[in-house]
Structures are given as structure tokens and as C-alpha cells.
């Protein structure tokens, strides 16, 4: 299922359509890179958790869910261990609900066997302010009480607003605050890529 074939730049048609409100894009990670990074994170999880025992992966919708699925598959392959897999929607726990338009609620799927006493690893695509992770920690307490909680992200772009750090980082991307980082995944966007969009210059 891992589309790790093209080593060259993807043809323009494969890139997600340029969002109207964003400036020019720079591709920082290609499909191969994303694949290799996920391989490495899967190995790191196995190493750091002593073989992946009691691990449950909780993806944060939308793209974190797909990343968690991919990590679970890789951990199954590398460590021959089947880890718990779920998804954790954080919409209802956001701290900016009152300042934004209402968002639709994503899916929360509790892993088979629950999370009590387990090592829960939150999986998300981009770590930015840290507010999503804070909300996820709150949402987690509604599901149960894990033994410990860790965080895995594909991209860490800095600019934290809360005392939160990731345990597993795919790539550190230094960005300026007004740039936009977009992760595209084959399952959702049709192609694996990470792009940085420049802010639109006022003309």
C-alpha cells in the first residue's frame, strides 16, 4: 500500500491543486521521503517502547489517522507485533471553538482493548502551536487513562505556543509564522508530499 516508487519530482498534475488563498509552493518532501520517514519512526517506536508492547496508536483526524494506519502496518512488518489503532477527534476540545465558524466533528474510534494502562502514541501530520495536541490530551482523558502518552508527528514546523514537544519527529522544518505547511497523503489527497506555501504578497 505504500506508494514509494517515484524518485523524481512528481508531475505537476499530481500535486494537490494550488489553494487559491496561498502563494507559491515549495515541495520539501516527496513520496519517497515520506515513506522513509515513516519507516524510521516505526523503527524508533519499536526501539523506544521495547518491541511495541502495549502500544496503541491514535491518529488525529484527518491526516493523522492515515499516518497512524501506515505506522501500524510498518510496525507489524518490522516488529511482527500488532499494535492497537484508533483515531481521536479533537474538535469538541479545541480552545478556539468560540472564535471560528463551527467545524464538523471527525470520527473517534476507540482502539480494540481500549487505552487504559496502555502506552498511547498520538499521531498527527504537522506540529505547530501545540494546541491540537493539548486538545488531544484532553480528549484522551474521556476515553480512559493510558499509562503514558507520546507524540509522533511527520513535520515539526516550530512556533510552539504551549510547553509541548514531540517524541518522534519525521522532519524539522524551519518556517516563518506566516508560511503554510500542507501535508498531502495518498489516501486523502491522492499523492504523498509536504509543501510549504509562501504568504500571498499584497500587490
Amino acid at each position, binding site marked *: 500500500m505504500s506508494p514509494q516508487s517515484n524518485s523524481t519530482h512528481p508531475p505537476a498534475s499530481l500535486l494537490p491543486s494550488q489553494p487559491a488563498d496561498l502563494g507559491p509552493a515549495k515541495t520539501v518532501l516527496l513520496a519517497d521521503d515520506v515513506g522513509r520517514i515513516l519507516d524510521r519512526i516505526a523503527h524508533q517506536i519499536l526501539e523506544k517502547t521495547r518491541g511495541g508492547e502495549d502500544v496503541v496508536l491514535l491518529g488525529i483526524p484527518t491526516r493523522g489517522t492515515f499516518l497512524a494506519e501506515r505506522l501500524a502496518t510498518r510496525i507489524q512488518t518490522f516488529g511482527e507485533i500488532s499494535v492497537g489503532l484508533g483515531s481521536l477527534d479533537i474538535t469538541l*476540545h479545541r480552545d478556539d*471553538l468560540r472564535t471560528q465558524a463551527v467545524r464538523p*466533528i471527525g470520527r473517534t474510534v476507540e482502539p480494540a482493548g481500549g487505552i487504559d494502562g496502555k502506552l498511547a502514541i498520538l499521531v498527527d501530520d504537522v506540529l505547530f502551536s501545540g494546541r491540537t495536541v493539548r486538545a488531544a490530551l484532553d480528549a484522551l482523558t*474521556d476515553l480512559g487513562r493510558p499509562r503514558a502518552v507520546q507524540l509522533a508527528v511527520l513535520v515539526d514546523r516550530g512556533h510552539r505556543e504551549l510547553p509541548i514537544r514531540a517524541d518522534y519527529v519525521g522532519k524539522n522544518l524551519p518556517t516563518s509564522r506566516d508560511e503554510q505547511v500542507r501535508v498531502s497523503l495518498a489516501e486523502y489527497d491522492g499523492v504523498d508530499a509536504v509543501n510549504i506555501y509562501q504568504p500571498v504578497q499584497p500587490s
Partner: protein
Amino acid sequence: MTRHLLSAGDLSASEATTILDSAEQMYAIQARQVKKLPALRGRTVVNLFFEDSTRTRSSFEIAGKWLSADVINISAKGSSVSKGESLRDTVLTVAAMGVDAVVVRHAASGAVQRITEWVGCHVINAGDGTHEHPTQALLDAFSIRRRLGELSGRHVAIVGDVTHSRVARSNVLLLRTLGARVTLVAPPTLMPAGVATWKCGLSWDLDAVLAGEVDGPVDAMMMLRVQRERMSGGYFPTEREYAIGYGLSPRRLALLPEHAVVLHPGPMNRGLEISSAAADSDRSIVLDQVRAGVAVRMSVLYHLLAGADEPAAALEEASA
């Protein structure tokens, strides 16, 4: 999303689907040990019930509380209403306390619409006279969807006292929006005036509908309550005759297609519009409807209240 929920007809197909999808997630929360979400923390919801209600009021109360809103119940009995206060004064008094939403049930059709003209907070219709009951329609759609999958292309028969039924009215509007076909089945005396203009089929013959002779086989049967409190006008000769003509008897239950479900908004008059055999059968999703009530109302409260207030609404409040 609209500011108020007054009519099931106000919802577009995508809005209704969003509410039902969110309700699906809320429904899963009911199975959790900790049934509490912070989404409406600091918001105040007032249940203003000028008519008796058990399930609607309590499910709105639970829905609000599970979303961490503060919920206050005011019923006409035991409030200043019984001292002769007018609807407008009661509503303005409640609104003046700084509430974020009022959930209103009133015996007069259109009363809830009128309230939106007086107050700046969100207003949710929990049943106004014989007009509408949109959250009931949403939970009916939710219950059918859970059993049968997508509503598009389904055929729903609504049977009984359509004239006095706000449930029927809201359901016709919402089910149509979601792509289902609706057939109303009632004796001519219990069909409301102007029903011919509604976007649904009509029949006086329940057995013909069950046989699939009217607009094809039925996927869901919604039995309406015979509202004895409104039955003073001689709408049918005897209850027995009504039961024979329009009750869901064991014989009629057996005529339904294999997959079809039976709904009833409650409270049921067993032996009148629905037999015990039908009410307690595997096809009956009456209890599912009650369970869905909380989830659907959580979803409605969330979508109306959680987001930022539109600036236009704020201006309106300031100038009022």
C-alpha cells in the same frame, strides 16, 4: 448553519447531513464512561416549556449538560406564566438574564418564530402547536439511517393524525430534503387543509400502502400518536374503528417488507395506533429513537452554539 432552528425546512441537505453525521459521533459518546465534552462550556441554555413533555425536555437537558452547557428548565406550571405573564414578557425576562439559547415548546403554532423577533439569543423549536418539531424529524431520520443506511430513495409512510402532528410536518420536509419519498396515510378527516400542496404522496388506505401499491414498497413506517387531548371534534367514530382502519396490527406488521422498520414518536397508545406486537417487535426502533434523541440534540446545540457568533447577529442585538 442557520442561527435558529425553527423548521426542518430551513435545513439544506448538506446541513442536515452534517447534523446527522455529528450526531453519529455524539451517539458513540453515550457508550463512554465519561459522558462529558467541553464544547459548550460557559454557555447557558434555557428549556422554556409551555406544554408538557418528558422526552424532549429531558433529552435537551441531558444533551446540553453532556456538552458542558448550563441548562435551566422553566415550565409554564410553577412559573410566572401561571400568574398571567405574557409570552413576550416571560421570554424577554429569560433573555435578559444573558442566556445563549432558548429551547421553546409552545401550544401555539408560530409562537417560536415570534420569539425570534423579540430576543437576540439562539432559538430552538422543540414543538410549536401543530406546526413543527424539527429535532424530532432529525432524530427520526437519524434512527432510520442507522438501521437502513442512506435515506436517499427510501420510502417512508407516515400514518395517523396528520392534522395535529407537528412531527409529520417536520418529517415530510426533512425526509424530502434528504431524498426520501414520503406517503401520508390518514382518514380524510385527519388530513390537514392544504395537504395537497405538500411534497409527498397521500393515501386513505393503509393496506394499499402496505401492499406497495402507493409509490412502491415501504422502508419505514412511522405511526403517529392519536392525540386524545385534541380529539374533541369527532374526527373518527370510535377508537376501535380507528384501530381497525389505521392501527398497525400484527396482521399489518407481517405485511411489511423484511427490512422495514417501525417508528413512533411516543408516547404510544398501545392497541390504538400501534399494537403491542408491533411496538415490541424487532422492527420497532422506538427505543432507538429515544436514544438518538440525546445525540441529535447534542449535535443541534453544538452546531448552533459552538462557533463564533456572526457579527451581523451582534449588531442586531445592539440595536434591539
